[in-house]
C-alpha cells in the first residue's frame, strides 16, 4: 500500500503540496489528475524518495520512505518501477542496455542469457519488436521512447508502478495505445499503480480510482462514478476542461 499523510512541500516561496493525504491500496490503479504545474509529478517523486517532504509522511509497504537508510531506500526502489514523462532513457546506451539496467537483482543483471531473455520479454510486453533493442534513444519516436521507459520500469518485476504523464505529447492514437498498455500491464502483472496525468479520458479508461490534486491538496479521491457525480466545483470544472488555475472556478 502507498500512503501519504499530511505531506507538505514548498520550493522557495511556492507551496506545491499543502498537506496531501493520499492512499493507494494493493492492486489498485490510481489516476492522479490535475492541471499542469500543480505538483502531480512532485507528489509522485515523494513516493520513491526522489523528493523529501518538508512535513508529513510517505508510507510504502509499511515503510516510512524518508526515514529509511540509504541501502534500505535503494532496496525499496527496486520494488517501485518509475516511468518518466519523457522516458529518461540513458542517451549513451542502446535500448537493450537501458532495459537491462532495470534488472535490480545484480546477479540477474550480470547473467547475460537471463538479461537477454528478460529484455526481449519486456519489449514484447510493451509491443516493441526485438530489433528495437539495438537502437539508441535518439533513433526512437516519442511513443517508442515511452514504451522503452515502461519496459525498463517493469524489467525488475516491481510491485508498484508509477507513471508520470505516460501519454503527454502523444497523438490520440498513440495515447490510446499507451493507455491500453498500462491497463493490460496492470492486469497481467498485478501491480499497484499510480498514473499522473491531465488526460481525463485516459484516466477514466485506465484507473480503478481517481484523485484530483488542486491548490496543493487532494480535492477528491474515489471511484470514477463518484467523480462523474461530484458537485465539487473544482472537480466539475476540471472534468468540463474549463479549468483556469488563476481565475475563480466555474460553479
Amino acid at each position, binding site marked *: 500500500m502507498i500512503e501519504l499523510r499530511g505531506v507538505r512541500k514548498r520550493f522557495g516561496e511556492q507551496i506545491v503540496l499543502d498537506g496531501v493525504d493520499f492512499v493507494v491500496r494493493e492492486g489498485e490503479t490510481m489516476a492522479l489528475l490535475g492541471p499542469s504545474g500543480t505538483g502531480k509529478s512532485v507528489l509522485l*517523486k515523494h513516493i*520513491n524518495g*526522489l523528493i523529501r517532504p518538508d512535513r508529513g509522511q510517505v508510507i510504502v509497504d509499511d515503510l516510512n520512505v524518508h526515514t529509511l537508510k*540509504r541501502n534500505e531506500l*535503494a*532496496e*525499496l*526502489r*527496486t520494488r*517501485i518501477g*518509475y516511468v*518518466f*514523462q*519523457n522516458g*529518461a*532513457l*540513458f*542517451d549513451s546506451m542502446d535500448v537493450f542496455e537501458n532495459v537491462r*539496467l*532495470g534488472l*535490480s537483482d545484480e546477479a540477474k543483471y550480470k547473467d547475460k542469457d537471463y538479461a537477454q531473455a528478460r529484455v526481449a520479454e519486456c519489449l514484447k510486453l510493451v509491443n516493441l519488436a526485438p530489433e528495437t533493442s539495438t537502437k539508441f534513444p535518439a533513433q526512437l519516436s516519442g511513443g517508442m521512447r515511452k514504451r522503452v521507459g515502461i519496459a*525498463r520500469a517493469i524489467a*525488475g518485476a516491481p510491485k508498484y508502478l508509477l507513471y508520470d504523464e505516460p501519454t503527454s505529447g502523444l497523438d490520440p492514437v498513440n495515447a490510446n495505445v499507451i493507455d491500453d498498455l498500462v491497463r493490460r500491464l496492470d492486469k497481467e502483472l498485478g501491480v499497484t499503480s499510480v498514473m499522473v496525468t491531465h488526460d481525463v479520458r485516459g484516466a477514466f479508461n485506465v484507473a480503478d480510482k481517481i484523485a484530483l490534486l488542486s491548490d496543493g491538496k487532494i480535492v477528491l479521491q474515489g471511484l470514477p462514478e463518484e467523480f462523474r457525480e461530484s458537485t465539487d466545483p473544482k472537480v466539475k470544472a476540471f472534468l468540463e476542461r474549463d479549468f483556469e488555475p488563476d481565475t475563480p472556478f466555474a460553479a
Partner: protein
Amino acid sequence: MALPLRLPRFLGRLLLGFLAHFGRMSLMMAELVRGLAEVKIWLPRTISEAATVGTGSLPIVIVISAFAGGVTALQAGYQWQTSLPVYVLGTLITNTIVLELGPVLISLVLAGRIGARYAAELGTMRVTEQIDALESLGRSPASHLIIPRVLAATVMLPVLVVIADIIGVGAGWYGVKQVLPVTDEDFAFGARYYWRPFDAYYSVIKAAAFGLAIGVVSCYMGFNTQQGAEGVGKATTAAIVTSSVVILLLNLLLARILLT
C-alpha cells in the same frame, strides 16, 4: 529599500549561497566516499572514461606543449645575457616547463575540455531526469557517474602532463638551438645539472591535484544543474571558470607547501 539595509541583505544572500554550495558539495563528497565501496560498478566505467579522456585530450596536449616549449625557447633567446653560460638555458627551459607551464597550462586547457564535457553531460542527464531514473532504479549516481569521471580526471591529468613535459622540453630544446648558439651537449648538461627528481614528482602531484579539482568541481556543477538548457549552459560555464580559479589557487598553495 534603504541603502543601509541593502549591504547586509546582499552579504546575507552571499553567505546563504555559499553555505548552500558548501552543504551540497559536502553531501556529494560523502556520496563519493560511500560509492567507493562499489568497486565493480565504478572500476570498468573509470577505465573506459580514462581511455576517452586520455585519447581525446592527447592531440590538444601535444599541440599546446609543443607551442609552450617553442615560445619559452624564443623568449629565453630574446632575454639572453651573454655573460651567462649557455648550459643555463637547459636548466631554464626544463624547469619552466616541468615545474609550471606543463601542469598549469595543460590543466587550464583541460579544465575547459574535460570540465565542460563533464558538466554538460551530467547537467543534461539531470534536466532530462536520467539521474532521477538511475536513482529510481536503486542505483547510485555516485558510483555510476561521478566516481568514474573524478578518478579518470585525477589519473589521466598526470599522464597527460608527463607527456606535455616531455614534448615541451623537446620543443624548447629544438627551439633554443634555432635562436642561440647552444649545442645538444650544453642543453643536456644544463637540464641535468640542476635537475632534482622531486621536480618531476612536483609536476605530477600538481597535475593530480588539478585533475581532482576539475573532476570534483565539474561533476558538482553538472550534478546540481537546474532549469533546462539555460541551466546546462550556466553549469558548464561555472564549471570551467570555477575549475580554472581553483587550479590557480591550488598552484599557489602547493608551491607554498611543497617548495619551501
